[in-house]
């Protein structure tokens, strides 16, 4: 009797295991271990915007904006890649002395290295896993005006399913009035350890460096 029931019991046990595993799996896959802050970025940003009467909202021009990254290959040369799908909103108040808020999204599928084989590898789960994580985002939570055209901006960078608080200097590269309306440009350069974002392929074997220098160049128009 027991022998004939064994396969059924095995099947039932495996289904039970799966239901438990999937229960744990789904939240885990969606949970992003945010280091800080505890306040939701959008709330902070909204508060910041509301407090300033002369806030200007700028829409990022995806044609003239880009993200660039630089990482060491084989412990020798520097490898460069770029992202083209940069979109989002920049909110300024009282330029050049006021606050700055950034809400930037990058389409990870737009990664390009000018080499088709390498692009396929960069999109795979070895690196950006674009099917699982189609965007990376930066949402600022606070900004501090520095001398000149510089701001110190803190915010949450979400990449590869992990969110980390980073702080970077942002430079306003220019502001102009064109026939197509007002334009403004910003550039930020910062360095991250990609393994902190769960992107560790080739790190232990020193094939591809852990430290990645990211440059984000933005051009936006007032909407």
């Amino acid at each position, binding site marked *: 009797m*027991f*022998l*004939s029931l*064994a*396969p*059924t019991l*095995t*099947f039932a*046990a*495996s*289904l039970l*295991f*799966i239901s438990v*595993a*999937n229960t*744990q*799996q789904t939240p*885990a*896959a969606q*949970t*992003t*271990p945010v280091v800080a802050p505890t306040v939701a970025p959008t709330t902070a940003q909204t508060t910041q915007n509301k407090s300033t009467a002369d806030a200007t909202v700028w829409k990022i021009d995806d044609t003239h904006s880009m993200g660039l990254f630089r990482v060491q290959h*084989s412990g020798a040369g520097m490898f460069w890649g770029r992202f083209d799908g940069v979109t989002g909103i920049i909110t300024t108040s009282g330029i050049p002395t006021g606050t700055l808020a950034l809400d930037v999204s990058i389409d990870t*599928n737009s990664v390009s290295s000018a080499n*088709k*084989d390498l692009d*396929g*590898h*960069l*999109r*795979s*789960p*070895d690196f950006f*896993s*674009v*099917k*699982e994580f189609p965007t990376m985002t930066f949402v600022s939570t606070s900004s501090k005006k520095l001398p000149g055209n510089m701001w110190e901006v803190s915010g949450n960078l979400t990449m*590869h*399913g*992990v969110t980390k608080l980073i702080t970077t200097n942002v430079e306003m590269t220019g502001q102009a009035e064109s026939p197509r309306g007002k334009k403004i440009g910003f550039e930020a350069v910062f360095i991250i350890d990609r393994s902190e974002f*769960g992107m*560790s*392929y*080739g790190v232990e*074997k*020193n*094939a591809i460096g852990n430290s990645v220098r990211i440059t984000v160049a933005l051009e936006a128009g007032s909407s």
Partner: protein
Amino acid sequence: MEMQILLFGIALPSFVGAAFGIWFMRRKQAGRLDCFVGLALATTLFLSAMSEDSLIQFMALNRWLWFPISMLLGAVVVGAGLLFAQSPLARTLVVLASTISAAILLNIPSWEIFTNQLFLGVGAATSAIFLAQVVKKRANISTYIALSLSLIGPSVLAMLSGFAKLAIPIGAVSFCLGIIALVHIAIQSKSLDRAVGLSGAVVIASIAAFGAATGFGYDTTNLPISSWVIAAIAPLGLWLGELPMIRSRTTLSAWARICGCAILAATAILIAALFLSSNSHSLSE
């Protein structure tokens, strides 16, 4: 770097898996031997995958690692189930339980939907049952070599699609089967003649099918689906040795089994390679 990948990604896991499998095969428990070979192969896959990625981080970050986990679960289910299942119906149910449970656990892009998972699980079970028919009759060195060659298909496709972390563990299982073949030559033990068994057939068919499904799910190079499908069924190339005019001739049948698997794996790779080269050509124009 390549040496480290070969050592920790392929050689070490496959030696552990082969030693594990051979140890079970040599135990004098006739009739129960084939319960554990699948577990040995799944362990190889698991160890190799873990050498490529961190187990601690996989829950949050790397969903693809559900592939080796699901194969390990499938191997445990089929191994445990076969200890008790006696009748053909009961064994079929065990195979279904193993592949469907593994498919549900897979949870990767394109395969999160239950109907897709069910389709994948039943497909893998069908492939495993067909594979087991030949493995049961022809448990000898040619079977190991053929199965080893068949897994090169999904491994190389994963590599061509840029997914090295998937290619290496599947390659390790292929390597493990090759080592078992070598041990078979060296030892010439009768107990090794039942080595692959039903559990081995289930795990090999599942690794081919689920490995191809995982590669397809994450593929951003848009390799033709036909290449993934052929890679998924490559182990069934063993049936070439069962053609009526061949099966009675021992040597010819053995070569036909090897060629059958090799042809299917090579066809899958060729379709993918031609697709990639034609795409490169059009871009350069």
